[in-house]
Protein backbone atom coordinates (compact mmCIF):
# COMPACT_ATOMS: atom_id res chain seq x y z
CA UNK A 1 0.00 0.00 0.00
CA UNK A 2 2.67 2.44 0.96
CA UNK A 3 4.16 1.77 -2.42
CA UNK A 4 1.21 3.29 -4.12
CA UNK A 5 0.88 5.95 -1.56
CA UNK A 6 4.43 6.83 -2.38
CA UNK A 7 3.89 6.92 -6.09
CA UNK A 8 0.94 9.14 -5.68
CA UNK A 9 2.42 11.29 -3.03
CA UNK A 10 5.32 11.96 -5.28
CA UNK A 11 3.09 12.51 -8.25
CA UNK A 12 0.97 14.79 -6.21
CA UNK A 13 3.98 16.76 -5.16
CA UNK A 14 5.26 16.97 -8.71
CA UNK A 15 1.95 18.22 -9.84
CA UNK A 16 0.94 20.30 -6.93
CA UNK A 17 2.10 23.36 -8.74
CA UNK A 18 -0.06 22.87 -11.74
CA UNK A 19 -3.20 21.28 -10.55
CA UNK A 20 -5.22 20.33 -7.59
CA UNK A 21 -6.59 16.89 -7.92
CA UNK A 22 -6.55 13.48 -9.48
CA UNK A 23 -3.26 12.31 -10.81
CA UNK A 24 -1.72 9.43 -12.54
CA UNK A 25 -0.60 8.32 -15.90
CA UNK A 26 -1.94 8.14 -19.34
CA UNK A 27 -0.97 7.68 -22.88
CA UNK A 28 -2.91 8.65 -25.90
CA UNK A 29 -2.37 5.42 -27.75
CA UNK A 30 -4.10 3.55 -25.02
CA UNK A 31 -7.15 5.69 -24.74
CA UNK A 32 -9.03 3.19 -26.83
CA UNK A 33 -8.64 0.55 -24.20
CA UNK A 34 -11.43 1.77 -22.03
CA UNK A 35 -13.73 2.39 -24.90
CA UNK A 36 -13.26 -0.92 -26.61
CA UNK A 37 -14.02 -2.64 -23.38
CA UNK A 38 -17.69 -1.82 -23.27
CA UNK A 39 -19.08 -4.22 -25.74
CA UNK A 40 -22.34 -5.37 -24.36
CA UNK A 41 -23.98 -2.34 -23.04
CA UNK A 42 -26.60 0.19 -23.68
CA UNK A 43 -24.97 3.44 -24.50
CA UNK A 44 -26.67 6.65 -23.64
CA UNK A 45 -27.48 7.76 -27.12
CA UNK A 46 -28.73 11.19 -26.27
CA UNK A 47 -25.56 12.04 -24.46
CA UNK A 48 -23.50 11.74 -27.59
CA UNK A 49 -25.48 14.48 -29.24
CA UNK A 50 -22.68 16.96 -29.78
CA UNK A 51 -24.89 19.98 -29.68
CA UNK A 52 -26.07 19.21 -26.20
CA UNK A 53 -24.26 19.88 -23.05
CA UNK A 54 -21.71 22.58 -23.41
CA UNK A 55 -20.70 24.53 -20.40
CA UNK A 56 -23.28 26.96 -19.13
CA UNK A 57 -26.91 26.28 -19.75
CA UNK A 58 -26.39 22.55 -20.13
CA UNK A 59 -29.43 21.15 -21.88
CA UNK A 60 -31.12 18.16 -20.36
CA UNK A 61 -29.86 15.09 -22.15
CA UNK A 62 -32.87 12.94 -22.60
CA UNK A 63 -32.16 9.31 -22.54
CA UNK A 64 -34.72 7.17 -24.27
CA UNK A 65 -32.98 3.93 -23.53
CA UNK A 66 -35.06 2.29 -20.84
CA UNK A 67 -32.13 0.08 -19.86
CA UNK A 68 -29.96 3.06 -19.11
CA UNK A 69 -32.28 5.48 -17.39
CA UNK A 70 -31.55 9.01 -16.34
CA UNK A 71 -29.79 12.10 -17.59
CA UNK A 72 -26.01 11.72 -17.88
CA UNK A 73 -25.59 15.46 -17.55
CA UNK A 74 -26.87 15.34 -13.99
CA UNK A 75 -25.04 14.09 -10.96
CA UNK A 76 -27.94 11.78 -10.06
CA UNK A 77 -27.39 9.57 -13.11
CA UNK A 78 -26.90 6.01 -11.87
CA UNK A 79 -23.47 5.44 -13.37
CA UNK A 80 -22.00 8.27 -11.34
CA UNK A 81 -22.24 6.53 -7.98
CA UNK A 82 -18.48 6.47 -7.57
CA UNK A 83 -17.51 9.60 -9.46
CA UNK A 84 -15.54 12.57 -8.27
CA UNK A 85 -15.15 15.27 -10.86
CA UNK A 86 -16.73 17.19 -13.71
CA UNK A 87 -19.15 15.34 -15.95
CA UNK A 88 -17.88 15.02 -19.51
CA UNK A 89 -21.52 15.04 -20.60
CA UNK A 90 -21.56 18.69 -19.61
CA UNK A 91 -18.20 19.49 -21.13
CA UNK A 92 -18.68 18.77 -24.81
CA UNK A 93 -18.10 15.04 -24.47
CA UNK A 94 -20.47 12.34 -23.32
CA UNK A 95 -20.73 9.72 -20.65
CA UNK A 96 -18.38 7.55 -22.72
CA UNK A 97 -16.38 10.05 -24.77
CA UNK A 98 -13.98 12.86 -24.07
CA UNK A 99 -14.59 16.43 -25.20
CA UNK A 100 -12.77 17.42 -28.38
CA UNK A 101 -9.16 18.31 -27.68
CA UNK A 102 -8.82 16.07 -24.67
CA UNK A 103 -7.54 12.53 -24.38
CA UNK A 104 -8.79 9.67 -22.27
CA UNK A 105 -6.60 8.30 -19.52
CA UNK A 106 -6.08 4.54 -19.79
CA UNK A 107 -5.37 4.19 -16.12
CA UNK A 108 -8.56 4.77 -14.26
CA UNK A 109 -10.77 4.46 -11.25
CA UNK A 110 -13.15 1.50 -11.35
CA UNK A 111 -16.25 0.91 -9.28
CA UNK A 112 -19.65 -0.75 -9.39
CA UNK A 113 -23.05 0.97 -9.52
CA UNK A 114 -26.56 -0.38 -9.31
CA UNK A 115 -28.59 0.15 -12.48
CA UNK A 116 -32.15 0.86 -11.34
CA UNK A 117 -33.53 -0.45 -14.65
CA UNK A 118 -32.50 -4.04 -14.11
CA UNK A 119 -31.28 -4.02 -10.53
CA UNK A 120 -27.87 -5.29 -11.58
CA UNK A 121 -24.50 -4.03 -10.49
CA UNK A 122 -22.44 -2.78 -13.39
CA UNK A 123 -18.69 -2.31 -13.42
CA UNK A 124 -18.03 1.32 -14.23
CA UNK A 125 -14.72 2.80 -15.28
CA UNK A 126 -14.38 6.52 -14.58
CA UNK A 127 -11.78 7.30 -17.18
CA UNK A 128 -10.65 10.87 -16.93
CA UNK A 129 -10.24 13.14 -19.90
CA UNK A 130 -7.09 15.17 -19.87
CA UNK A 131 -6.38 18.32 -21.76
CA UNK A 132 -5.21 21.83 -21.25
CA UNK A 133 -8.17 23.26 -19.40
CA UNK A 134 -10.41 22.09 -16.63
CA UNK A 135 -14.05 21.79 -17.61
CA UNK A 136 -15.37 23.37 -14.45
CA UNK A 137 -19.01 22.48 -15.12
CA UNK A 138 -21.26 19.92 -13.48
CA UNK A 139 -19.02 19.02 -10.59
CA UNK A 140 -20.21 15.76 -9.13
CA UNK A 141 -18.72 14.04 -6.12
CA UNK A 142 -20.75 11.09 -4.96
CA UNK A 143 -18.16 8.65 -3.74
CA UNK A 144 -20.93 6.42 -2.55
CA UNK A 145 -19.39 3.40 -4.13
CA UNK A 146 -19.70 0.49 -1.81
CA UNK A 147 -16.61 -0.93 -3.45
CA UNK A 148 -13.71 1.45 -3.34
CA UNK A 149 -11.61 -0.66 -5.66
CA UNK A 150 -8.41 1.12 -5.23
CA UNK A 151 -7.98 1.03 -1.57
CA UNK A 152 -4.34 1.55 -2.34
CA UNK A 153 -5.16 5.10 -3.22
CA UNK A 154 -7.42 5.26 -0.20
CA UNK A 155 -9.84 7.26 -2.31
CA UNK A 156 -10.60 8.35 -5.83
CA UNK A 157 -9.38 11.85 -5.32
CA UNK A 158 -6.45 11.27 -7.58
CA UNK A 159 -5.40 12.87 -10.81
CA UNK A 160 -5.08 10.13 -13.39
CA UNK A 161 -3.65 12.39 -16.04
CA UNK A 162 0.00 12.23 -15.01
CA UNK A 163 2.08 11.00 -17.88
CA UNK A 164 -0.54 11.89 -20.43
CA UNK A 165 0.62 14.16 -23.16
CA UNK A 166 -1.72 16.63 -21.59
CA UNK A 167 -1.91 16.63 -17.88
CA UNK A 168 -4.71 18.86 -16.82
CA UNK A 169 -7.79 17.08 -15.59
CA UNK A 170 -10.76 18.14 -17.68
CA UNK A 171 -13.66 15.83 -16.83
CA UNK A 172 -14.68 12.24 -16.09
CA UNK A 173 -16.54 9.64 -18.13
CA UNK A 174 -18.45 6.65 -16.77
CA UNK A 175 -17.90 3.70 -19.06
CA UNK A 176 -19.50 0.34 -18.45
CA UNK A 177 -17.04 -2.54 -18.39
CA UNK A 178 -19.47 -5.30 -17.58
CA UNK A 179 -21.83 -6.72 -15.04
CA UNK A 180 -20.81 -7.83 -11.60
CA UNK A 181 -22.54 -10.95 -10.33
CA UNK A 182 -21.98 -10.22 -6.69
CA UNK A 183 -22.34 -6.74 -5.39
Amino acid at each position, binding site marked *: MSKFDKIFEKSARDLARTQSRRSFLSKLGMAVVGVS*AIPALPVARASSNPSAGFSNGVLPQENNNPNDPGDPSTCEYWRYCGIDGFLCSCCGGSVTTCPPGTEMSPITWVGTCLNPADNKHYIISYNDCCGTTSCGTCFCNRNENDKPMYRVFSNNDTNWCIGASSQTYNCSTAIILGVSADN
Partner: protein
Amino acid sequence: MFCCLPFTGQAAGVNSDATNYKIFCSGCHTIDGRGSGDSRVPTFRNYVGKFLTVEGGRAFLVRVPGVATAPLNDEKMASMLNWLIKEFDPKRADLINSNPYTAEEVGPLRKDILRTSLLKYRAELTQKIDSN
Protein backbone atom coordinates in the same frame (compact mmCIF):
# COMPACT_ATOMS: atom_id res chain seq x y z
CA MET B 1 -22.27 -33.77 -23.47
CA PHE B 2 -24.46 -30.84 -24.22
CA CYS B 3 -27.01 -31.53 -21.62
CA CYS B 4 -24.64 -32.12 -18.81
CA LEU B 5 -21.75 -29.77 -18.96
CA PRO B 6 -20.70 -28.92 -15.44
CA PHE B 7 -21.66 -25.52 -14.21
CA THR B 8 -18.35 -23.73 -14.02
CA GLY B 9 -18.60 -21.44 -11.07
CA GLN B 10 -20.71 -18.87 -12.83
CA ALA B 11 -23.67 -19.22 -10.53
CA ALA B 12 -25.40 -16.03 -9.55
CA GLY B 13 -23.36 -14.21 -6.99
CA VAL B 14 -20.00 -15.57 -8.10
CA ASN B 15 -17.92 -13.40 -10.34
CA SER B 16 -15.60 -15.01 -12.84
CA ASP B 17 -11.87 -14.37 -12.63
CA ALA B 18 -12.18 -12.10 -15.64
CA THR B 19 -14.86 -10.04 -13.94
CA ASN B 20 -12.91 -9.78 -10.72
CA TYR B 21 -9.93 -8.66 -12.75
CA LYS B 22 -12.03 -5.94 -14.35
CA ILE B 23 -13.28 -4.72 -11.02
CA PHE B 24 -10.16 -4.87 -8.91
CA CYS B 25 -7.22 -4.69 -11.27
CA SER B 26 -8.08 -3.27 -14.67
CA GLY B 27 -8.08 0.31 -13.51
CA CYS B 28 -4.32 0.18 -13.14
CA HIS B 29 -3.36 -2.76 -15.30
CA THR B 30 -5.90 -2.00 -18.07
CA ILE B 31 -8.36 -4.50 -19.46
CA ASP B 32 -5.85 -5.96 -21.87
CA GLY B 33 -3.02 -6.18 -19.35
CA ARG B 34 -0.79 -3.65 -21.07
CA GLY B 35 -0.53 -1.37 -18.09
CA SER B 36 0.44 2.25 -18.39
CA GLY B 37 2.74 1.83 -21.35
CA ASP B 38 5.75 2.84 -19.28
CA SER B 39 7.49 1.42 -16.24
CA ARG B 40 4.97 2.60 -13.71
CA VAL B 41 2.38 -0.06 -14.29
CA PRO B 42 4.31 -2.79 -16.09
CA THR B 43 2.74 -4.89 -18.78
CA PHE B 44 1.62 -8.44 -18.02
CA ARG B 45 1.57 -9.43 -21.65
CA ASN B 46 4.07 -12.15 -22.55
CA TYR B 47 5.96 -11.33 -19.40
CA VAL B 48 4.15 -11.99 -16.14
CA GLY B 49 4.65 -15.77 -16.33
CA LYS B 50 8.40 -15.30 -16.49
CA PHE B 51 8.38 -14.50 -12.79
CA LEU B 52 7.57 -18.14 -12.22
CA THR B 53 10.89 -19.11 -13.74
CA VAL B 54 13.12 -17.34 -11.23
CA GLU B 55 13.56 -17.92 -7.53
CA GLY B 56 11.33 -15.67 -5.46
CA GLY B 57 9.24 -14.70 -8.46
CA ARG B 58 6.32 -16.94 -7.69
CA ALA B 59 5.97 -15.36 -4.27
CA PHE B 60 6.53 -11.88 -5.67
CA LEU B 61 3.40 -12.08 -7.81
CA VAL B 62 1.35 -12.60 -4.66
CA ARG B 63 3.14 -10.11 -2.44
CA VAL B 64 2.65 -7.02 -4.65
CA PRO B 65 0.20 -4.67 -2.95
CA GLY B 66 -2.46 -4.95 -5.66
CA VAL B 67 -2.72 -8.70 -5.05
CA ALA B 68 -1.96 -8.81 -1.35
CA THR B 69 -4.53 -6.19 -0.41
CA ALA B 70 -7.31 -6.85 -2.93
CA PRO B 71 -10.68 -7.45 -1.25
CA LEU B 72 -10.88 -11.00 -2.57
CA ASN B 73 -10.47 -14.10 -0.46
CA ASP B 74 -7.45 -16.33 -0.91
CA GLU B 75 -9.30 -18.85 -2.98
CA LYS B 76 -10.57 -16.25 -5.43
CA MET B 77 -7.18 -14.57 -5.51
CA ALA B 78 -5.37 -17.82 -6.28
CA SER B 79 -7.87 -18.59 -9.00
CA MET B 80 -7.56 -15.13 -10.50
CA LEU B 81 -3.77 -15.24 -10.52
CA ASN B 82 -3.89 -18.56 -12.36
CA TRP B 83 -6.29 -17.02 -14.84
CA LEU B 84 -4.19 -13.88 -15.18
CA ILE B 85 -1.03 -15.73 -16.14
CA LYS B 86 -2.82 -17.89 -18.68
CA GLU B 87 -4.74 -14.93 -20.08
CA PHE B 88 -1.86 -12.52 -20.51
CA ASP B 89 1.08 -14.85 -20.92
CA PRO B 90 -0.36 -17.89 -22.66
CA LYS B 91 3.08 -19.10 -23.72
CA ARG B 92 3.80 -19.85 -20.10
CA ALA B 93 0.38 -21.30 -19.27
CA ASP B 94 1.95 -24.71 -18.71
CA LEU B 95 3.98 -23.39 -15.82
CA ILE B 96 0.81 -22.50 -13.96
CA ASN B 97 -1.33 -25.39 -15.20
CA SER B 98 1.18 -27.88 -13.86
CA ASN B 99 1.46 -26.07 -10.54
CA PRO B 100 -1.42 -23.66 -9.94
CA TYR B 101 -1.61 -21.26 -7.04
CA THR B 102 -3.86 -22.44 -4.23
CA ALA B 103 -5.56 -20.63 -1.37
CA GLU B 104 -3.16 -22.37 0.99
CA GLU B 105 -0.18 -21.00 -0.86
CA VAL B 106 -1.31 -17.43 -1.37
CA GLY B 107 -2.81 -16.90 2.09
CA PRO B 108 0.45 -16.53 4.04
CA LEU B 109 2.20 -14.74 1.17
CA ARG B 110 -0.49 -12.08 1.02
CA LYS B 111 0.25 -11.20 4.62
CA ASP B 112 3.84 -10.50 3.64
CA ILE B 113 3.10 -7.40 1.57
CA LEU B 114 6.01 -5.88 -0.30
CA ARG B 115 6.38 -2.29 0.62
CA THR B 116 9.53 -0.20 0.44
CA SER B 117 11.61 -3.12 -0.79
CA LEU B 118 9.34 -3.77 -3.75
CA LEU B 119 11.12 -1.98 -6.54
CA LYS B 120 14.53 -3.30 -5.58
CA TYR B 121 13.16 -6.82 -5.30
CA ARG B 122 11.39 -6.52 -8.62
CA ALA B 123 14.51 -5.17 -10.32
CA GLU B 124 16.51 -8.16 -9.08
CA LEU B 125 13.91 -10.55 -10.42
CA THR B 126 13.62 -8.91 -13.81
CA GLN B 127 17.39 -8.81 -14.10
CA LYS B 128 17.50 -12.56 -13.56
CA ILE B 129 14.64 -13.02 -16.00
CA ASP B 130 16.21 -10.93 -18.69
CA SER B 131 19.60 -12.60 -18.40
CA ASN B 132 18.04 -16.04 -18.76
